[in-house]
């Protein structure tokens, strides 16, 4: 009887502990999912900042998860694209890079994080293409190629690479054939994209289609 009682207690504790863990996991996933929707839908800088703040709170509490840093950085990049002032754009991008670095430390094999880093460099470049192009274009291209190599199923890596190639070709007035092929590949990857991670990024398809519209 004593033994049975003891076993039952152990079982109950295991159940309780794993139950708590499950509950926490649920709470994490649900809060994240809700907030990911918020950052995707936010239009104004304050709205994005609100979502970014939430991701940063979660990141501070969940010290082993890469997703909160990833989405906070994504939000900062979105803020940089909406900001007019060049200095502030750079400040947002600095914040994005800090988050990307942390996400990369937590998930070094995650192609999405590398692709986001390439995105940050693209926006950094766009602040002043004349003087930054020479330095950042090769860096962004190299990083995006790395993201593609890490996961050939990542549509965002292809999409950003394609947009980068498109912009370069347009700037230099050369053919956009290569860029358009990459964008096609990105669209194909978007249609087949699947991830076991419920928090996997889903953004980028609309922008790819928009960029693709320029191709004849």
């Amino acid at each position, binding site marked *: 009887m004593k033994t049975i009682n003891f076993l039952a207690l152990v079982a109950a504790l295991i159940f309780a502990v794993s139950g708590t863990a499950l509950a926490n996991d649920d709470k994490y996933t649900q809060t994240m999912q809700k907030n990911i929707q918020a950052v995707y839908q936010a239009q104004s800088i304050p709205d994005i900042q609100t979502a970014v703040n939430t991701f940063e709170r979660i990141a501070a509490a969940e010290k082993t998860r890469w997703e909160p840093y990833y989405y906070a950085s994504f939000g900062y990049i979105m803020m940089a694209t909406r900001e007019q002032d060049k200095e502030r754009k750079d400040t947002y991008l600095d*914040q994005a890079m800090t988050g990307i670095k942390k996400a990369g430390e937590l998930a070094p094999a995650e192609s999405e994080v590398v692709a986001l880093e390439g995105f940050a460099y693209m926006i950094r470049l766009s602040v002043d293409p004349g*003087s930054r192009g020479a330095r950042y274009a090769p860096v962004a291209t190299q990083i995006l190629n790395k993201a593609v190599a890490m996961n050939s199923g990542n549509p965002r890596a292809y999409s950003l690479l394609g947009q980068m190639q498109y912009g370069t070709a347009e700037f230099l007035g050369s053919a956009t054939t290569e860029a358009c092929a990459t964008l096609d590949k990105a669209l194909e990857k978007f249609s087949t994209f699947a991830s076991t991670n419920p928090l996997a990024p889903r953004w980028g398809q609309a922008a790819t289609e928009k960029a693709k519209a320029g191709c004849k």
Partner: protein
Amino acid sequence: MKAVFTAILFFTHLAASGQTRIAGRVTGAAGEGIPMANIILENTYDGTSADAEGNFQFMTTETGTQTLVVKVMGYKEYRHAVNLDGKPVTVAVQLEEAINELEAVTISAGAFTASDESRRTVFKAIDIATTAGATADIASALNTLPGTQKVGESGRLFVRGGDDSETRTFIDGMVVLDAYSPSAPNTPSRGRFLPFMFKGTSFSTGGYSAEYGQALSSALALDSKDQAESTRTDIGILSVGGDVAHTQAWDGGSAAGKLQYTNLRPYMGLIDQRIDWNNAPASLEGIAAFRQKVGTDAIVKFYGNMNHSDFSLYQHDIDDSSTKYYYRLQNDYQYMNGFYKDILNENWLVRGGVSYTRAQNNMTYDNRHGLETEKGIHAKTVLEGSLSDHVEIKTGTEVISRDYAWAADSAGSSLSQGFHEVLAAGFAEADLYASNKFVTRAGGRLEYNNLTRQLSIDPRLSLAYKVGAHGQVSFAYGRFRQTAKNQYVRVNQDLDPEKAQHYILNYQMMVSDRTFRVETYYKRYTDLVKYINGDANQLKNAGKGYAKGIELFWRDNKSLRGVDYWVSYSYLDTKRDYLNFPYKVVPAFASKHNLSVVGKYFVQAIKCQLGATWSYTTGRPYNNPNTDAFNGGKTPAYVDLSLNLAYLPRPSVIIYFSCTNLLGRNNIFGYEYSTVQNAEGIYNSRPVRQAASRLAFIGIFITLSKDRSVNQLPSL
């Protein structure tokens, strides 16, 4: 068993029911609301964002003593313990401003920094390469900035009434001796270092950091690029030669080599020159660069440059042009620079290096020969970091050792002179931020010279204050010293260094792609080298002088679509009494007014980048021995309109064309006089003019790389 479950249920229930409301307002030092702050209950998901006025409130189910953290960009993190027991908590959050690079005022007096990375730069690294008329020469491009005086026959940097030797070049903090390629008398020389090697340029026209010594007027600090990102081969076919370069990149490092051959002979044969060349200049140059990241935070760089150049010409007698003298100059140059930088931790970094220069000139003039050799080694270590977010420190030590030897022989007699100078120096500088609006930089430089056996201390002081959101005022003061030129020290090794004091006041305003700058200064020269009784072999430090002026700069790449332009104007009032001057006069290299207008335009439709530079310099004095006044003559104004054009038929191919002095103006830089009077008792004269009215240049640059969109445009 039952009790355990009950207990679990009980605690769960308690946690769910006890909610505490936390509210408050986030304000700055003056009580103003700070919007969008992140309010965090540490280690929980609970929290919120402050609204536009700084107000916030949220509910939490947490209990007991917790930490409330408030974070927002530009302010220090705020932490406060709160006790959560269901009763509403109100917190007044007053944030302290963080001193940060972006918001903080920068010292702009005397300084023109060019960098691709830094945001608040007036001048960008790429500007040096794309300024028309500069033909990718660093000094020529900087000559379009305020504070410089154009001296067309020299091509070097003359800053604020100082001569060319008063500007010192540094690569990665290491000194460069003899930074210019040799040139024929009265023809402009080019800098030895190509602009595309560098990611940043800091050109200071006065009041610079205590880190830079041995420069009376100006410090030109060049930061070399880090490792290359991609493997590529570059080929250049030029109207005056050709070059081939290869860069090999790997993860964390790169190596590059370049071989360049320049020969002006065919060009000089084609276009009539005012110089009677025997052999027009030709040079062979090899460059090697190596970069490797060490660990995550350190980088090692090596750079080497070797050059051999040779030319010869005939100089014609002023009185009788059929009499001519043979002149030949062979120059051998080696420069090596090793650099190391390591980020020790979040707050401190150490950098240092060693540079070696060897320059040899082998000269023949008529039946006389001269051999001049200078060797220099510079070793330096600098520690930089912050003691707190209000105090930044830079301190370092360095040793510069120079060996100079000169030997001349003519008609059987020979003479040799030389010296060995060792300078040991230490410097320290602190940036004290009272707030983001106000910074004081104070420091000094301690130097010991083995030749004069003197220990000296030179103070430096700068202040900068932000006025409004976009403007700032800065002031700089400093005392500077520089060993006299080699040709004087070899005659008298006891000569003291020449000295200068700078006082600079600057106002700068930057509003989204438009910059306005005005700067005024006063510079006092003392201990300049002077001849005793007009004898060049008897020298003492009895010379003195001054320079003062006001300068304006306006840059705008916003108002006209696709056009980027800048205008600089410098007014200079300077006089000095040195060398053979009988009294204080304006030196021959100084001009009162300098005006430059530089424009750049990229025409997408025809894939062309167009650039134009117009410069105007008022006349400079020259000494006419036929009149009583010393340096009493004045040349006509110098005017130049230069154009360049880069055409990209394919992304990897660039065709480049440039032409200086498009209008073919006959610019006169001064007059040379005969040493003897003619039959009428007059010294005959001859104007010093450009070797050819125009210098045209055409080149084709091809880049071979895996990534076909890479081209050499940034290097042009």
